[in-house]
């Protein structure tokens, strides 16, 4: 695998500094820690010691038990067996409050904040600043703004959380955890929704925290991040801890081998197809959040959209999908202008959208996996009025096995699945719909390396059948490697377009950021 490293690896000098710090006593130690859900043995007895001041990465497939481990360490869920030692003392950790009081904090995988409160209120939730018992609203907003500015997050502290994008919310969660004076800080896939710029900010933050003596646990599916940040890495497979390595003594292939018990030669699976006729074309499409976008998708083509958070890509595709009204411009389908006023119009034409936020837009979390997988195709599944239960089950089971969705059964609720497996449902529900154009908005958020490779292979299958794909990703290597045509968005405008791999990462980044004179670049 080529090295799609975000930036320069941490210098070897630095990792020696850290290993000096790592010689300290273990700050947190797990002994035979175990978690059993009804029907799932999510974490089998695990022994692990985190050294004070280290950055310890944890990797593993979707559903391997990483988040479960974190939830046990932060008192979110009770453990089935085992004990946890914090600074040598056994601790109960039965409530999150107890963990917080020990200085153990986490940024969880699913963003858990209060959407109805302001950013400042969320940052200070549980630790409000008061005078004479009364909340100091203004003071807290000022403080919160200062924290955000210090961290380099350009976000307003007085805004309602629900007004922020999911990536921005992730940053708030990070800011909150980072400012609580924690001694032990856990990040569960913090970069899943972040672009490279924001990720870089986050890394800087993590390093700063490490310097100030905080121990950090870092979970990610992005190998290059692990190699950039971590001092040591532990690997989980099927709820079992299969090994811990010093980062200098291992490589990506070994880790992947330990994670999935086989090796992957090639993650980005790209078969060049000859493009057929144009499926969809937008002409000067303008709507809320984007302006004057003209692009087209052909049969057999992957069109990639790259940009920073808030660049308008999601708004653009949801408008094509009929979720939001366009204000001007045209959408052409098969060369003919079409009116798409609501989602069902788009679906009828043959457009499928896997939206970016699986929690808010993608899934009915409280409902069974099977219902989620079949939701768009119940019309096909029913004869007259009645649903064929056999067909329903068959289709769900097919998707579960094809996409290797890890679930105890098709009737388990979507909420009981691990993050990555939920993401597979968001994608899987459209695969049997017979769509002609697939729009994937951040399709591999939280998906493990092995499954990513499968999803990319799936793209090829779709293309082979004559479909076209619009791929939105904030993860540059993904769009860079896969897109036949890569469009760069900046603040709602399409600022550049490139054929497959025709420019460097740096060029694209510069265009997305908007420095220099990039606007006059290669439009095709």
């Amino acid at each position, binding site marked *: 695998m080529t090295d799609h490293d975000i930036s320069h690896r941490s210098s070897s000098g630095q990792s020696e500094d850290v290993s000096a710090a790592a010689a300290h006593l273990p700050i947190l130690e797990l002994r035979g820690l175990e978690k*059993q*859900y*009804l029907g799932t043995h999510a974490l089998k007895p695990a022994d692990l010691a985190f050294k004070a001041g280290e950055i310890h990465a944890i990797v593993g497939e979707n559903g391997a038990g990483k988040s479960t481990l974190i939830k046990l360490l932060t008192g979110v*869920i*009770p453990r*089935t067996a085992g004990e946890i030692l914090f600074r040598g003392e056994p601790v109960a950790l039965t409530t999150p409050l107890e963990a917080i009081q020990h200085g153990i904090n986490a940024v969880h995988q699913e963003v858990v904040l209060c959407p109805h409160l302001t950013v400042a209120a969320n940052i200070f939730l549980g630790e409000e600043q008061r005078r004479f018992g009364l909340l100091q609203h203004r003071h807290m907003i000022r403080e919160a703004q200062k924290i955000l500015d210090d961290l380099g997050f350009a976000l307003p502290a007085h805004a309602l959380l629900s007004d922020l994008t999911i990536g921005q919310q992730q940053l708030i969660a990070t800011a909150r955890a980072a400012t609580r004076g924690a001694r032990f800080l856990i990040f569960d896939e913090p970069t899943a929704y972040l672009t490279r710029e924001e990720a870089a900010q986050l890394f800087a933050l993590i390093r700063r925290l490490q310097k100030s003596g905080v121990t950090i646990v870092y979970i990610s599916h992005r190998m290059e991040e692990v190699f950039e940040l971590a001092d040591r890495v532990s690997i989980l497979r099927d709820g079992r801890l299969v090994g811990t390595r010093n980062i200098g003594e291992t490589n990506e292939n070994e880790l992947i081998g330990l994670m999935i018990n086989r090796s992957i030669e090639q993650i980005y699976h790209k078969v060049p197809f000859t493009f057929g006729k144009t499926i969809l074309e937008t002409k000067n499409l303008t709507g809320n959040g984007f302006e004057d976008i003209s692009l087209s998708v052909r049969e057999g083509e992957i069109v990639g959209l790259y940009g920073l958070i808030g660049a308008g890509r999601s708004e653009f595709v949801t408008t094509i*999908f009929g*979720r939001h009204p366009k204000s001007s411009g045209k959408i052409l389908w098969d060369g003919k202008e079409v009116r798409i006023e609501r*989602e*069902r119009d788009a*679906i009828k034409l043959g457009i499928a*959208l896997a*939206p970016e936020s699986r929690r*808010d*837009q*993608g*899934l*009915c*979390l*409280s*409902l069974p996996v099977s*219902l989620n997988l*079949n*939701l*768009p195709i*119940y*019309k096909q*599944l*029913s004869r007259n*009025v*009645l*649903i064929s*239960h056999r067909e329903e089950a068959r289709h769900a089971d097919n998707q579960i096995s094809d996409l290797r969705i890890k679930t105890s059964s098709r009737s388990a609720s979507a*909420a*009981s699945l691990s993050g990555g497996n939920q993401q597979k449902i968001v994608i899987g*529900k459209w695969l049997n719909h017979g769509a002609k154009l697939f729009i994937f908005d951040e399709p591999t958020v939280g998906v493990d390396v092995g499954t990513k490779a499968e999803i990319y292979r799936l793209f090829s299958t779709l293309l082979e059948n004559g479909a076209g794909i619009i791929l939105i990703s904030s993860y540059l290597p993904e769009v860079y490697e896969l897109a036949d045509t890569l469009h760069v968005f900046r603040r709602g405008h399409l600022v550049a377009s490139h054929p497959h791999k025709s420019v460097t990462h740096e060029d694209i980044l510069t265009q997305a950021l908007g420095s220099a004179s990039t606007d006059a670049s290669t439009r095709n």
Partner: protein
Amino acid sequence: MSLETKDTGTTPKRRFNVLFGLTLFALLLVLWLVLSLATDSFWTGNNISNLLRQGSMIAILAIGQTFVIITGGIDLSVGAIVGFTSVIVAWLLAHGFPVWAAILITLGIGVCIGLFHGFGIVRLGLPPFIITLATLTSLRGIGLLITNGNTISIDNDPFTEFSRNDFAGVPNLFLMVVLVGIPAYIFLSHSRWGRYLFSVGSNAEASRLSGVNVKGTIYLAYTLSAVCASFVGLLLASRIGVGNAMQAEGWELQAIASSVIGGTSLFGAVGSIHGPLLGAFILATINNGANLLNVNSFWQRVITGVLIIVIVYFDQLRRRRR
């Protein structure tokens, strides 16, 4: 609940397995058994008929209500619709409409009320609680205006006898529960519209993006509820032989309670057809039993409250253990 935490399997201490494992149906049977032993008159054909009759109307309301609750809404107007439609059908019959026409028109009015609720929620963006509370108030008023605060007698004997008669020993009223319950079951569990009710209740946005007609589903749910309520209005008119706008007061709460006792979640996306039926007949049994046991009617209230807590608690435990 906003409180429902998902950590299961953490209470291994409690071990009253037998009781806690009881399904709602078993709980109903236990109630029946206890009453059969405690009184001579409970387990007689006559009393069982009475019981079935008494639970029927709330049962049908509860079915309609369940559709609405599954979508995450609530329909407070059902009691008022019952009273209002009893007036309508009585008025129509008094003005010489044939029975079939009176029934169809009354049901049609139910449809209109339901559509209006859908309109208020979908188009005007009102909370379901508010729009149905408003129709509750207004419908009682309109009904009173029509009757001038009086009752309208129904002189049509076939119509009024219907609710008193049996078919093969089963009271007609209970047959109506079956008549409503079976299509309702098929609709909820075997049709795609039923699936859509759940998906809208679970996540309306995700449903939209999956091509579900969310607005249509909302219209549908409230229309079904209102039609069930107007059907109950017909049954009530037949049973009491008059149209009176103030009847069925508080039945909305009984219907909602039946539904929730039957396992429907007020947060949406959880519910069944048999649940509300069981809930309604559990409530009817408590009342019937208390009457037969000659429990003071004040104690009866106290006991009803306590039993509701106990029953729902057991049922929750059972669910959580699954």
